[in-house]
């Protein structure tokens, strides 16, 4: 029998909870600082509005040449970004939204390069145009979706477990979302609808992880009536440790495969998932569970004498 974690293992996770809290606080502060300093997230056009055109050129083209082409239609201020590898000759051109004439922008960009490089000299791979109004709405809806989902989860966990468990789970969720978004801000990656989907996936994953540990704590609370909360929580984390490592490991495997082989469109999505899975696994051990103990110290549970 292969075993990653030997049975009967007892690592003192909770002994390191101060260190973990410190570490997490630093990460969260870094994330928030980065977002504040950069004046908010680097919203993709989904949320900011604007036009994005992805063009493949048959011949090698430098970013300057692309900009020169754009200058002819007065869009030299656009962001030009290489897509994929250099030899792919693919560029992302992103023009900011100007309330007035956003409608024809994508057509103009395509036309100007067709004129310069010929009908077969380019291939328009992707066009995205989002009006500023729609962008605002999508932003609002996305935020609402996350808030509603969290409220729903809070209610469910309160019903199935106890309120303090729900608080711990939400603290872990907040932790994971903030840090993942922070990593996006620090690495200057664009935050778009696909990223929102990634954040939501992380919410699901991190919760799943937290609940598995919580479930064991709930079970052990009933079994080990004489023990204090802290050792029970620690035992529970240890008992579920092999599962935690196995699950995170296999999921990471698939996501890393997506990251390496999935192609440009999926690349950032997979990146977000990798960050989220690592943070989510860490948070269920070092945030969600210790939170229960912090809560117990502040508000001792009345049902059973513990401390």
């Amino acid at each position, binding site marked *: *029998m*292969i075993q990653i974690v030997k*049975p009967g293992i007892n690592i003192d996770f909770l002994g390191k909870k101060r260190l973990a809290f410190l570490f997490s606080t630093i990460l969260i502060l870094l994330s928030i600082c980065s977002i504040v300093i950069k004046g908010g997230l680097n919203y993709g056009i989904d949320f900011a509005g604007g036009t994005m055109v*992805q063009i*493949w050129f048959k011949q090698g083209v430098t970013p300057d040449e692309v900009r020169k082409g754009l200058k002819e239609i007065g869009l030299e201020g656009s962001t030009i970004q290489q897509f994929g590898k250099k030899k792919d000759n693919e560029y992302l051109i992103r023009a900011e939204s100007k309330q007035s004439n956003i*409608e024809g922008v*994508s*057509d103009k960009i395509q036309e100007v390069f067709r004129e310069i490089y010929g009908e077969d000299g380019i*291939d*328009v*791979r*992707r*066009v*995205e*145009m989002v*009006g500023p*109004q*729609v962008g605002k709405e*999508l932003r609002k*809806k*996305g935020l*609402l*979706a996350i808030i*509603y*989902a969290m409220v*729903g*989860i809070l209610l*469910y966990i309160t019903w199935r477990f106890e309120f303090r468990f729900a608080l711990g789970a939400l603290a872990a969720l907040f932790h994971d979302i903030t840090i993942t978004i922070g990593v996006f801000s620090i690495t200057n990656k664009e935050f778009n*609808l696909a990223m*929102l*989907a*990634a954040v*939501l*996936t992380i*919410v*699901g*994953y991190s*919760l*799943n992880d937290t*609940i598995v540990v919580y*479930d064991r704590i709930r079970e052990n609370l009933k079994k080990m009536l004489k023990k204090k909360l802290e050792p029970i929580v620690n035992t529970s984390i240890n*008992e*579920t440790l*092999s*599962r935690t490592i*196995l*699950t995170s490991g*296999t*999921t990471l*495997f*698939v*996501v890393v*495969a*997506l990251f390496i*082989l*999935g*192609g440009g*469109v*999926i690349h950032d*999505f997979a990146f977000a998932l990798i960050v989220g899975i690592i943070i989510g696994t860490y948070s269920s051990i070092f945030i969600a569970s210790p939170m229960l103990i912090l809560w117990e110290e502040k508000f001792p549970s009345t049902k059973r004498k513990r401390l």
Partner: protein
Amino acid sequence: MSNNLGWRATLIGIITLIALVYLAPSIIDQLPGWWPKKEIKLGLDLQGGTHLLLTVETEKAVENAVERKISDLKDSLRKERIRYTKLERVNATEILADFPSSKHMDKFREFIKSEFHNLEELSVKEDEGRFSVKLELSNQEIASIERFAVDQGLETIRNRIDQFGVSEPIIQKQGEKNILVQLPGIKDIKRAKNLIGKTALLEFKLVDDKHSIEDALNGNVPIGDQVLYQRAVDKLTERTIRRPFLLKKKTLMTGDVITNARVQIDSQFNTPYVTLEFDRRGKRLFDRITAANVNKRLAIVLDNNVYSAPEIQERISGGRAQITGTFTIEDAHDLAIVLRAGSLPAPVTYSEERTVGPSLGRDSIHNGIVSIIIGGIAVIFFIVSYYRLSGIVTNISLILNIVYITGVLAAFQATLTLPGIAGIVLTIGMAVDANILILERIREELSFGKTPRSAIDSGYSRAFKTIIDANLTTLIAALVLFQFGTGPIKGFAVTLSIGIAASLFTAIFVTRFIYDLILTKKRVKVLSI
């Protein structure tokens, strides 16, 4: 537990069979005719195509309705012999009317009350011999005009797209004012956008030859006139020129009387033009207009662009007209389509466009599938080497899981998008997790010295609660996303929800069945786990 193996086997068999039946058309090309042909549709991001969100400018429709009300009012007031000094639209929904005396004003107010129920009196003012009434379109009427503008716009756009010829387009209302159009696999997007977004309001107006166009261009536009332009291409310089026309504002006839529009080719110059046929009302109207205006020029105006302004040589009673201009065959063809499909009751603007070229879609599918297969094989391999025979049981359940998910997607003819694939990957991760939870639990129970059977029993019953809680919380998140999310997020939520259901069934029910089957058939002393 072994006593009900029979019905469990039947249930799993039936579900698997149904899933395979639905899945087959998506994989195999040639199937007998009686086979239910429901396929998984690929989203635009995977097969290429364009997604457009149009916003209907409903305020414009309301404005137009108020203008029409005013002209109706003017006609009625003339008949009723009610005199007014002023009758005009002040803003989108309000009308201001001035009267020379209180007698006329009172008659007017009476008349509005009895004949124009949709107009509500806002205020009545009398000072220094000025008597004025302000009217407003009722909220009910505004709401109904707005609704009509969107519904009618949707119908018209559907007509145009049908005639343009796109396979399996999606055209639906989104929210109150938006129309969603999805055109899979379309190549000439610019042309499609032009065709869909054109208001296509065709108007016949007289050219004002009495006043000079130069004066009008200098700012002295005669009352009741307007300047509109004709766009033409100069044959020598190939530059677009704009030729101004001084037209009477009054519209004599609009395109709603058109029954048919066709492209024809002028044999002399080999240029295309569009012929129009009118219905009975249109024929009568056209007959009257041409009879009354012989030797005058009649301009054909489409969306405020003058197309042509031929001189009326004689009275035309056949009910036909033609639009000439400098256009390509394609332009003429599209013009005929919009004229046949009718005009949009209000202008539309594009507020969202997402186009994926067919090549990118292909790459995305290819890369996505390759990476999932590689990741999947690695996981399957790992599980077997870690859990041995029990790992095989897990892998059977994982493969069934994928069959079920894709089967359900096919049965509902769901659309598979990139975020949808992400949802599947996540649920497979959760299915693996559920299996790992159970197996780790069984190992734990075995380490307490239990027999395989009792270890499996308690392993399942202990892990069951955990799995249910973990999956239900995720399901809650998925359902919320489905409810509040848009487009791609919805796709993610759909596959996630289906996946959770499938993985609960396979991880808990199917694997348990296999263990029970093995345990009844064989006396297992040591579990290979």
